[in-house]
């Protein structure tokens, strides 16, 4: 984001004046490491968050609304529900094992299958203009269907339970990866491919050294979308009547008992889970793609 700005200001400098000396790559790094503004902003962030939570706590205490319980009570309920177990179970309670683990397992399975299938099919489709043109309308339609609409279909086909839930996640999460991978794989620099042909690289080598690296930023853009869709579908497929466990089940169960505290605790847990999963994916992306080429901040 900073690049165009510096070039623009350089261009704007009148020709008579001496240009500023070129900055070495080290300067921004050092500045960022010391950066008082950076630290100040980070501090400000946490302070504001803490302040907001404190205000909520106070207002909720004074007001005493049933619908918006104070955060301390929510945290207490979450602790009591899930994290007050014995030390040898890493402090997880039985409820945590019975609810959080199945949800996470289904989500990991669904997202994993969608990612692998999406990347594999995407590369296969993206390598040929013809095949891409053949599949494009069908893929666009499949992506346009709002995924929750399909869940009742999977309920009929697979009945309630884990296979239905994993199928729903896979079916909704596969399209963004597939379409983005096909796009990315189709846009490999033709010059490089010609060089690869001259060097007589095998198809496997071409895939490993050319196609996948050049498609990687697009693949990750798709994976990020798919991850949030997986989380949405994980919760949605557990909210349906007929499920027996999972965080979503905890939510509906608490809703039917009007147990607002547990509803809020489950929401906080899901938010934290979403945050952790997203941060994890971004860390992997940073390692594989590098910071310079990511499209989103």
């Amino acid at each position, binding site marked *: 984001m900073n690049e165009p700005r510096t070039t*623009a*200001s350089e261009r*704007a400098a009148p020709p008579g004046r001496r240009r500023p000396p070129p900055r070495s790559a080290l300067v921004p790094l050092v500045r960022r490491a010391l950066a008082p503004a950076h630290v100040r902003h980070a501090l400000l962030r946490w302070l504001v968050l803490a302040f907001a939570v404190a205000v909520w706590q106070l207002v909720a205490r004074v007001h005493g609304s049933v619908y918006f319980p104070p955060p301390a009570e929510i945290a207490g309920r979450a602790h009591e529900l899930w994290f007050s177990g014995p030390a040898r179970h890493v402090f997880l309670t039985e409820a945590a094992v019975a609810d959080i683990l199945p949800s996470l397992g289904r989500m990991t399975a669904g997202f994993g299958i969608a990612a692998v299938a999406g990347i594999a099919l995407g590369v296969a489709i993206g390598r040929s203009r013809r095949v891409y043109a053949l599949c494009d*309308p069908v893929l666009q339609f499949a992506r346009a269907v709002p995924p929750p609409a399909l869940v009742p*279909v999977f309920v*009929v*086909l697979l009945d309630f339970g884990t296979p239905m839930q994993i199928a729903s996640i896979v079916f909704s999460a596969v399209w963004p990866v597939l379409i983005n991978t096909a796009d990315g794989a189709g846009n490999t620099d033709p010059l490089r491919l010609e060089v690869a042909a001259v060097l007589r690289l095998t198809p496997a080598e071409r895939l490993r050294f050319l196609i996948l690296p050049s498609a990687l930023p697009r693949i990750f853009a798709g994976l990020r*979308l798919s991850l949030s869709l997986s989380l949405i579908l994980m919760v949605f497929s557990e909210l349906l009547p007929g499920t027996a466990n999972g965080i979503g089940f905890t939510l509906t169960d608490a809703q039917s008992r009007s147990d607002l505290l547990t*509803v809020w605790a489950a*929401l906080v847990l899901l938010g934290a889970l979403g945050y952790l999963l997203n941060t994890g994916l971004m860390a992997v992306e940073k390692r594989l793609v590098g910071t310079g080429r990511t499209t989103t901040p």
Partner: protein
Amino acid sequence: MTSKGRQEQFLLGTLGVLLAFGACEAVSRAGLVRRDYLPPASEVLTRAVALAGDPVFLDGIGATLRAWVLGLGLACVIAVPVGLVLGSVPVVDAAVRAIVEFLRPLPSVALIPLVSLLLGSGTETKVALVTYASVWPILFNTVYGLGETDPLAKDTLRAFGFGRLAVLLRVELPGTAPFIAAGIRISAAVALILAVATEILSGFGEGLGIFIAQAGLATDGTRDVLAGVVWAGVLGLVINGVLVWGERRLFPWTPGRRGVA
């Protein structure tokens, strides 16, 4: 692209659709799955066409679209001004960022039980959830787009003595508009997901999701469920198509798919 290339692309695309259709038809007719589980594609399509003449079904689609429009509109009204403030005042951005970063990863469908407890299961619930989910893409794209506006133009305008508001209206807002439009396009899809999801879970009232959910409960209702899904897909395609078309008309200078998801 040449017109010949485009023609070939169109033909191949049509062929692909026909192949997919044929495959679905064959799988069902060959008896690989029970026929009432997966009816032939032709039957589903006939039913989908028949539904287009069914006033009750059309009312349902209307109800879904109403919630979609209201929610998306509210989200724009909230997200664009907030995004402009966050994007132009770094201190506010840094201050609010933490709260935003904790709210955004929450899967919005998880709010359905809470909001239904708060607002019942009518249109308000749908609109509230659609709004919540569609705010984020528009907000983030506004902030991001504001950071991408041409600093040279801003400096020039300031040098001519224009005030903060004039710079905002003359440079920053037009420069950010394509990003906002892209955010709205992303939100439009999210909004449809939330509208349908809320309807499926609430189980009564009217809407496309309710049609699908109720058809799913009936024995032998898969044909209706799939016909509803076809309509949901068509709705999604049409919405996206209209928005992409509008973006191209309004901002012809920007490359096709801009923005952050």
